[in-house]
């Protein structure tokens, strides 16, 4: 039998190729470099994300596919790739010093981050169930390892075990949903699934509904939606802080990318049903996340619940699921990358050897001794709470306006009520920072890379808040090929 290997469109997958190459390069360089110089591996990985970004740029505006229509290059995929690469670059920057403090300065760390990013990039571009599943696994397996990276710290390992078990459990549920979709249509290509389901006119077929629920459950775990959120606080608390920041942005965004593509492309036939399902998830996620966050005394757990609540806000965009709705999803995830990694970086700033600086009480009186750090934290909190003039406000504004425009007024009402509620716990920390006297001397762990990353994130958060026009235009443009004429 003559076998002709397909000739793929290499230009389309160039960013992924570069990323794969760079991850391997990092692994090789890691072996060659001495133990004291491991930070250089981090810088190398950073350069890798930037180079990948540079290879992604020329693809902007193109719309193509390759590998038997399994891999798409379109606006959504590209925008998400930028979010992933941005998050990765920021996480690498804030990791450099942290790894030293925790005594796990190993090159593999950066390789695993790059592998996880590669997985996300393929997830966002995947147009086929097998590809999506494999890339998702590539992403989560890398993050399992990263969670458990501080092996001497039992909390880190336990967090990894927990994340791992729940992760593969929900992956199996996701798989069952995918299997049902395949069974109903005989194909694994998302576009063809959508076409077949429309043609068959199955309507509210129980198998289809079951598939929908299982898919939502499996991906709900990845985006940390209630009721699939139980792992989040423990995992965020236990894992290395930069990895908690990474998980709270990257895999979440990737989960949203897949969720959006899967439901919109493959399941338009049961739009009302999944609309309702996501509506319920969205309301539960926002409300529970915010309510529980109020009671936390550990800042990483608080940020974990806050990130759950933010997943709820983003789900508003998926419930709306029109051009504006999806544009608001990508817009919000972009802003969220800045502000959430920023907030986690403040925890890194407080971290010392043997003390992770995670108690909210640790921030008492920070504004006295370190006014600039306090201002940075304030900006991130204002943004997370959705108060102008920050990017978080623009993001939420866009989400809520999408909801109102599509007549989901109650969703918007619940959203803004939650948003007001969230102020309480963000400002509790602000109060401690500004309005209480320090209980002892506060020493921050500063490093040039961390300060640089913080400056980038503060400026980014404010810049998007003051002049969001280009970003909004880009988000809209990224959706145009899908919804437009």
């Amino acid at each position: 039998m003559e076998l002709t290997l397909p000739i793929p469109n290499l230009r389309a997958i160039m960013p992924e190729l570069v990323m794969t190459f760079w991850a391997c390069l990092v692994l090789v360089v890691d072996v060659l470099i001495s133990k004291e110089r491991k930070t250089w591996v981090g810088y190398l990985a950073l350069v890798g994300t930037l180079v990948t970004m540079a290879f992604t740029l020329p693809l902007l505006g193109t719309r193509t596919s390759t590998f038997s229509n399994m891999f798409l290059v379109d606006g959504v995929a590209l925008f998400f790739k930028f979010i992933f690469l941005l998050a990765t670059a920021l996480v690498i920057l804030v990791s450099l010093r942290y790894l030293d403090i925790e005594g796990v300065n190993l090159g593999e760390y950066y390789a695993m981050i790059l592998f996880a990013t590669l997985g996300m990039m393929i997830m966002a571009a995947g147009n086929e169930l097998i590809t999506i599943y494999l890339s998702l696994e590539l992403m989560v397996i890398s993050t399992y390892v990263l969670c458990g990276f501080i092996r001497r710290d039992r909390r880190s390992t336990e967090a990894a075990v927990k994340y791992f078990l729940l992760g593969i459990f929900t992956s199996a549920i996701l798989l069952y949903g995918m299997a049902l979709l395949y069974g109903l249509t005989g194909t694994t290509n998302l576009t063809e699934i959508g076409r077949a389901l429309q043609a068959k006119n199955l309507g509210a077929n129980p198998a289809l509904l079951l598939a929908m629920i299982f898919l939502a459950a499996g991906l709900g775990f990845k985006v940390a939606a209630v009721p699939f959120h139980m792992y989040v606080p423990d995992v965020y608390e236990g894992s290395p802080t930069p990895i908690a920041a990474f998980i709270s942005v990257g895999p979440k965004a990737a989960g949203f990318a897949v969720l959006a593509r899967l439901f919109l492309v493959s399941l338009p036939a049961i739009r009302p049903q999944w609309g309702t399902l996501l509506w319920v998830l969205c309301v539960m996620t926002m409300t529970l996340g915010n309510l529980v966050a109020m009671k936390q005394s550990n800042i990483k757990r608080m940020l974990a619940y806050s990130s759950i609540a933010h997943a709820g806000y983003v789900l508003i965009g998926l419930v709306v699921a029109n051009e504006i709705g999806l544009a608001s999803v990508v817009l919000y995830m972009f802003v969220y990358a800045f502000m959430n990694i920023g907030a986690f970086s403040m925890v890194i700033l407080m971290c010392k050897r043997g003390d992770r600086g995670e108690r909210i009480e640790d921030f008492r009186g920070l504004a006295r001794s370190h006014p600039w750090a306090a201002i940075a934290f304030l900006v991130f909190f204002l943004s997370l709470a959705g108060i102008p003039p920050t990017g978080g406000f623009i993001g939420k504004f866009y989400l809520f306006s999408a909801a109102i425009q599509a007549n989901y007024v109650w969703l918007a009402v619940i959203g803004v009520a939650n948003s007001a509620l969230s102020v309480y716990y963000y400002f509790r920390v602000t109060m401690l920072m500004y309005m209480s006297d320090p209980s002892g001397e506060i020493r921050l762990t500063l490093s040039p890379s961390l300060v640089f990353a913080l400056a980038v994130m503060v400026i980014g958060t404010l810049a998007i808040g003051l002049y969001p026009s280009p970003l909004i235009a880009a988000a809209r443009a990224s959706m145009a090929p899908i919804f437009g004429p």
Partner: protein
Amino acid sequence: MTPTEIQHALGGFPILTLVTFIPLAGAIVLLFVNSRSTGLIKGFALVVTLIDLAFSLPLYTRFDRTTHLMQFAERHEWIPSLGAQYYLGIDGISVLLILLTTLLGAVSVLCSFKAIEERQKEYYVSLLVLQTGMLGVFIALDFFLFYIFWEVMLVPMYFLIGIWGGPRKLYAAIKFFLYTLAGSVFLLLGILALYFIHGGQTGDYTFDIVKLIYQVKLTTGQQFWIFLAFFVGFAIKVPMFPFHTWLPDAHVEAPTAGSVILAGVLLKMGTYGFVRFNLPLFPQASQSFVPFIALLSIIGIIYGALVAMAQDDIKKLVAYSSVSHLGFVMLGVFALNVQGVSGGMLQMINHGLSTGALFLIVGIIYERRHTRMIADFGGLSKVIPVFTVIFAITMLSSIGLPGLNGFVGEFLILVGVFQRSIMYAAFAVVGIILGAAYMLWLFQRMMFGAVEKAENQNLRDCTAREVIYMLPLLLFMFVIGIYPKPYLSILEPSVANIVRQVQVDRTPQAAAQKSAERDMLQRAVSPSAAQEQAPSRLAGARPAGVAGAGASKAAVPVAGDGATGDAISPSSGAPAVAAAAPSLPAAAGVPQPAPHRQPGR
């Protein structure tokens, strides 16, 4: 130049931008000053506020009092994809509030020199940022921009209360923040609803306040719900009766300057919001909400006065008196006639002056005795005569003695309310009497009688600095009280315009009906021309036809190119029949003839 605004009053000089952002620029510069050089920080903050005050004066002197149009307007693209612009402008309603803000800004910096000893740099930075936020709220003519200023303002106020406040500062700060934030998120929903309704109707998605006010058509149900959303946002800020509980806490815990600004400016944003947005945007809802709001206002007036009477703490007393006074303002505004609204607007300024001054007085006495209990004082008039005179004038202004500013405002409000309902007016009078009672009683207990406490024997009288910052406030109390005409005349065109708007039926049915009526008239005048245009107008085809009201009321001609909406053309008093024909050319985008821009007297 579009007829809704006068852009080049100062030859294109961006005076509003400067007035708004000078304090912010000052705050940013202050950030980089060494926090130990406190003298420099104080001086710099004062200079910045004085410069801001100086820049705001031309807004008054160069103000065109013959028109209700937006003046000194600046308009730039900002977020085109959302339809949000950087659009500033002022009219008679906002100009006095801006002057009040810049004046109180300088006063509050000056009054803090001694009172604030900790973390001075952060303090003055917060004050300056706060001032930018407040000015922005009054100046912004784009809902998006407005909302940003509205929210930004909360943060520095929160810090002012929370860092430099009294013993329960944390509680008061978070309560203040959560209450006002909860209100403003509903405001946000209302704004979004308005935005989409207007966008859906005209295809022009914009946050332009002027455009929305003149163009959007709302059904009765939409008016009700959006009014309610705006109401929650503004009523918390005012604060109206059931939403007022944050106010005493915030006032009592805030430092003096914080209280001055809170009472003088922040509370006015609620009433300003009602006048600027609720009345013209939702006329039917405003009309039908009158009994409800009047009830809440009257409860607020009486309840505030009674609670004030029962206070032992001077600052709490003044705080509750604000609830009472603001109830008065709301009652005047919702009389929905020219006298009531202008009275309410003027009373906002008066309250800013007199209550601001009262808080300053409380601050002066507190700095000396570190107590605010009324019982700790008595017979002060013999010890500190200058202080007594200042206090007396302020107190008399607050209770509305003729010849002082409070009288003019209260009188106008009463005249307006009387026209609407004698019963409301009766309750309002009761409120005035109660107000006089607790103020006079307070003055009597503090100032007269024998000096019983030893600590009060050797109190220092007001210093020169204190007299300097009290003087302008006292001066304006007299000026407005004796010769209010300039201030009323600056308000009048805008207020008259708002009151006219409240009479307009904004529901689409009404608009359709009106235009149908007009078509019939038109057909009678020139049958052939009308028949050509009639179908599109009846169908409500926005860009081409005038779906707006008849010309005698606020006609809303829309320029065909989707540019700024044409001006309201009030020729009030002129019969509809006569006005219908001449205003027709405006429908095609031709500028209005000049006489239409002048409110008929």
